[in-house]
């Protein structure tokens, strides 16, 4: 078995063992749970240390349509760097969960599902085969369903879990059909070969990447398939950290990056991506501004940040997207785990129950502040560099250096800069409502979380602080991501910030901070029920456009089945009996009538025969 495959199998084995030995002690379950991703992390690190790698594709199985034992894996800078991040975040989430889920009766299955989730994400990351990719992609959807629905006694959790699964599954119609088109037209399931073949034909590229984009919109929570993500808050905080940072949402962006040459061959799809990303970016940020729940603020911020990545992909810079994906993973995991720590301490995630926690939870305060600064994009945190790289890519596109039209670059640039301002405002609002000001909510003693929970925060704060420097020309990241790429991309994205973009973003940042400071947030937290807070009615749109019509269809079909089909079938039976009853009436025992009938029939038969013979 090859190293990348081992990396996938280890957490999967941990998951299976965790599920099979459901009744084992908590300590054993925790050990297995941490061991899985940690072992994968070690493998990933070893793999990274081996650079440069021999061949991009490590082929460990049959491929071809009828031998779907798809174990072909790909080892390149893109895969290894993202795999490192996934393993790192997943390990920390598992460690954190030991403390966070201390009182959870179903801890072992929970931990097993997280391990499975990690394995599935790693499968997507290292997949060198489309079918392998699909397996990881869908299993991830299943795990998100299971984990969001962890507290399935609660109505909210059940609803959110089903919603997450179904909304992403709707996108997966496109994804599956897209993969079918890709396999069908190229005749291979190996990703590099299929992508190369598809990118040489712009029609195929447009159809396949457009369809796959649908799946990406679902997984990466982009408009209009984004509404599951804020609801996914019903899951425990570590799960949110995992979903929002390392797995699930990252998978969408990652898959576009993996199939990027094909997307580059279709400016139409890239343009659509850009428009969608702009809508999502700004809309989600504005919505985040009015949320009344800490985790929902972060959730909408994830939607908005993911849009940055999609926008980067749309304007032709895969590396900027991946860069932002990685740095976002660190700070967003940090933010969610920190939010989880607050919830753990306060017992609620509503912003009306927090405030003034600075003194009682110093470690959480420090790390969360770092995370928020990174989210806003303050120099020299990682968020600054990665966001700059997106802006630089947009600037490039605006100058007409990319496959998309310049106006797309301008659009992305403008919206991204405006979004920076809004981001700064909502981050500041969240920070102030959580940490400064008077303490709201029920009075209870607040303590810092145990080390098993705050150590992961600190560990995540390190890359949040320092990861950005890897993007400078002296840094390793640009070379890393490009390393061993099966198809060297035409534009080795420059991830270094430019002067113009720095100026723009700093201005926007200052405006945002100004707005944030002037807002009287604590007096108007709201109950999260306003039109804006509920996500501009997208849920209602789902309801009216998809759910209700479907339910009507279900009712029609059910009624049609019992009313028409069922009745037709029983009608045949009833009709047979009824016609028998009717014919029975001729059996009245009158021999003369019988003979008359028989004779008449005989005559008719004879006449017919005679006529037939005569003619």
């Amino acid at each position, binding site marked *: 078995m090859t190293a990348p495959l081992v990396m996938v199998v280890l957490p999967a084995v941990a998951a299976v063992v965790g*599920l099979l030995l*459901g009744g084992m002690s908590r300590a054993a379950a925790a050990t297995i749970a941490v061991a899985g991703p940690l072992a994968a992390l070690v493998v990933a690190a070893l793999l990274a240390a081996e650079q440069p790698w021999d061949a991009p594709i490590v082929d460990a199985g*049959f491929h071809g*349509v*009828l*031998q*779907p*034992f798809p174990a072909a894996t790909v080892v390149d800078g893109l895969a290894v760097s993202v795999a490192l991040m996934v393993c790192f975040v997943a390990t920390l989430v598992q460690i954190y969960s030991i403390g966070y889920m201390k009182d959870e009766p179903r801890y072992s*299955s929970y931990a097993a599902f997280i391990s499975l989730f990690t394995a599935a994400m790693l499968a997507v990351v290292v997949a060198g085969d489309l*079918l392998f990719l*699909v*397996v990881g*992609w*869908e*299993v991830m959807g*299943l795990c998100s*369903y299971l984990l969001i*629905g962890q507290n*399935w*006694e609660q109505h909210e959790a*059940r609803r959110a879990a*089903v919603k997450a*699964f*179904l909304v992403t*599954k*709707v996108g*997966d*119609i496109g994804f*599956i*059909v897209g993969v*079918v*088109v890709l*396999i*069908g*037209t190229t005749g291979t399931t190996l990703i590099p070969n299929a992508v190369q073949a598809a990118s040489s034909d712009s029609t195929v590229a447009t159809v396949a990447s457009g369809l796959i984009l649908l799946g990406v919109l679902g997984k990466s929570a982009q408009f209009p398939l984004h509404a599951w993500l804020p609801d996914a808050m019903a899951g425990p905080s570590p799960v949110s950290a995992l979903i929002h940072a390392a797995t699930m949402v990252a998978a969408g962006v990652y898959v576009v990056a993996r199939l990027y040459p094909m997307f580059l061959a279709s400016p139409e799809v890239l343009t659509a991506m850009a428009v969608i990303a702009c809508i999502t970016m700004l809309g989600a940020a504005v919505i985040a501004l009015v949320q009344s729940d800490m985790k929902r603020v972060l959730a909408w911020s994830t939607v908005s940040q993911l849009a940055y990545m999609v926008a980067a992909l749309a304007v032709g810079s895969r590396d900027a997207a991946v860069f932002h994906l990685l740095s976002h993973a660190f700070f967003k995991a940090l933010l969610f785990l920190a939010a989880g720590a607050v919830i753990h301490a306060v017992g609620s995630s509503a912003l009306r129950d927090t405030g003034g926690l600075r003194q009682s939870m110093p470690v959480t305060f420090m790390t969360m502040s770092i995370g928020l600064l990174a989210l806003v994009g303050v120099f020299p945190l990682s968020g600054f560099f990665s966001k700059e790289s997106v802006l630089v890519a947009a600037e490039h596109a605006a100058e007409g250096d990319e496959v998309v039209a310049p106006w797309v670059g301008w659009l992305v640039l403008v919206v991204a800069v405006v979004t920076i301002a809004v981001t700064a405002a909502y981050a500041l609002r969240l920070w102030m409502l959580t940490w400064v000001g008077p303490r709201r909510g029920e009075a209870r003693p607040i303590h810092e979380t145990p080390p098993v929970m705050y150590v992961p925060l600190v560990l995540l704060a390190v890359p949040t602080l320092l990861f950005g420097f890897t993007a400078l020309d002296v840094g390793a990241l640009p070379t890393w991501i490009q390393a061993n790429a099966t198809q060297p991309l035409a534009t080795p994205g420059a991830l270094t910030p430019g002067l113009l973009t720095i100026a723009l973003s700093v201005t926007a940042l200052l405006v945002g901070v100004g707005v944030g400071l002037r807002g009287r947030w604590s007096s108007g937290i709201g109950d999260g029920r306003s039109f804006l807070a509920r996500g501009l009615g997208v849920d209602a749109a789902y309801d009216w456009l998809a759910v209700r019509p*479907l339910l009507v*269809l*279900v*009712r029609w*079909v*059910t009624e049609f*089945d019992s009313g028409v*089909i*069922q009745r037709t*079938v*029983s009608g045949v*039976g009833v009709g047979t009996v009824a016609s028998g009853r009717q014919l029975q009436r001729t059996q009245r025992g009158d021999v003369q009538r019988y003979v008359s009938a028989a004779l008449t029939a005989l005559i008719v038969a004879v006449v017919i025969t005679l006529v037939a013979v005569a003619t």
Partner: protein
Amino acid sequence: MTSNWLLPALLVVPLLASVILLVAGRRAESWATWFGVGVQSVGLVLMLGVLAEYKRNMSGSMQLVVDAEWVPELLVHFRLGVDGISLPLIALTSLLGWCAAVYTVRRVPEPGRARALVGLLLLLQVGLLGTFMALDLILFFLFFEVVLAPMWFLIAFWGSGERRRAANTFILYTVLGSVVMLVGFLIVIVKTGSADMVALANGLGEQMSGNAQLAAALLILGGLAVKTPMWPFHTWLPDAHTAAPTVGSVLLAGVLLKMGTYGMVRIVVPTLPDAMVQIAPYLAAFAVIGILYGALASYGQQDLKRVIAFSSVGHMGFVLLGISTLSVVGINAALFGNIAHGIITGLLFFVVGGIKQRTGTTAFASLPRGLYASAPRLGFLLGFAAVASLGMPGLAGFWGEFLSLVGAYHPAVPEHLFYRVMLVLAAVGMVLAAAYFLRVLRRVGQGAASQATMDDVAADEWLSWTPLIALTVVLGLAPVLVFQVTDPAVRMVVESVAGALP
């Protein structure tokens, strides 16, 4: 070749055993179920013998053939054999029969009478295995019919609810279907002068005139479609499932439904290729309607067993879609889908039967919530089977459906655009399938448990279900195990169609 006795032995052993039970009288009641397990185990061993003797590198041709003249006046031969198309189904039948026998040992459904129940199950086994082995049209028909009577008794005597009505609907509907099929067979036999399925498939059938082929194909397909069941001939299925006892449902969904699609691949496609090429797009349309309709109707059902029954309509829709592509990928996918559906739906019905045994109902209105809490292992298995059934990649249910779609992208028939529309609609059906299974899990598995605890999965249940669970995972991870057997045989079938293509 000295191992030719294997296939007849597979039929004779359960047949003799059921006769023994019949003769044994009342004193057999106490040991009948164990006897059933023993006989099914012998069957399983014989099956392993078949697997061992089977030459994988010759999967395209018939193996272990037995041929004896039977009724020369009617051209009927007693002709058995196995190839890549039938081998997986025969293995599945043996396995599910064994699982059902093990399950029956401690769970004889009301009103008892273990001797009769086991005897009928063994007789059912004879019919099922015979159908998959027969290489003679009349023999095929005979075994096809042998299945009906035991099933009728199973539903009518050991069933629940409106069992008589359901059993009567089942038998009348399917007999109607088989009679129609028989007429089709007779047309083929009369026009070609042979009932030998192999000879017919290898070019004898193609010699029939276009109209005769079309008539025969429509009749045979009509009969098989009832069994499959293809929309709109599915009405008997939900009723039969709801009323049938657990083992009845398992065998009904697990094996009985496969006889229809097996017959299409084994008989209709290679024997009547010209007609099949004409019919294929319509078949595809019906298949896709079935997929969507099954999913929507599932969502609207108020009974767990009916939900699964309608889900079968959807799954068999994917199988039909695969067949209708007439391509190598599509037909392989169909055969795989057959097996996967047999395993997964068999497991689902076992689990639902377990739930029914514990709660006494399968109606949503009266089922307690929170199975995950009251019986975590049973709840897990329900979730597992449901997830497998909704086509989760990595489990067996996915490959049949996905590769049907791949097949539909490149059908062997010329209507490419039409098939691509069908492809997209079928993909929509996959999502809808997720919706109704999640509804089931949400209603049954999740929620605050209204009942503190329930007996969790017992040892005998584990024993009879584990093979199915294991196969679901194994075939999900290594579908090639099935494909390497089916592929050469499917290529033979598709080759015979190739000549009929414009």
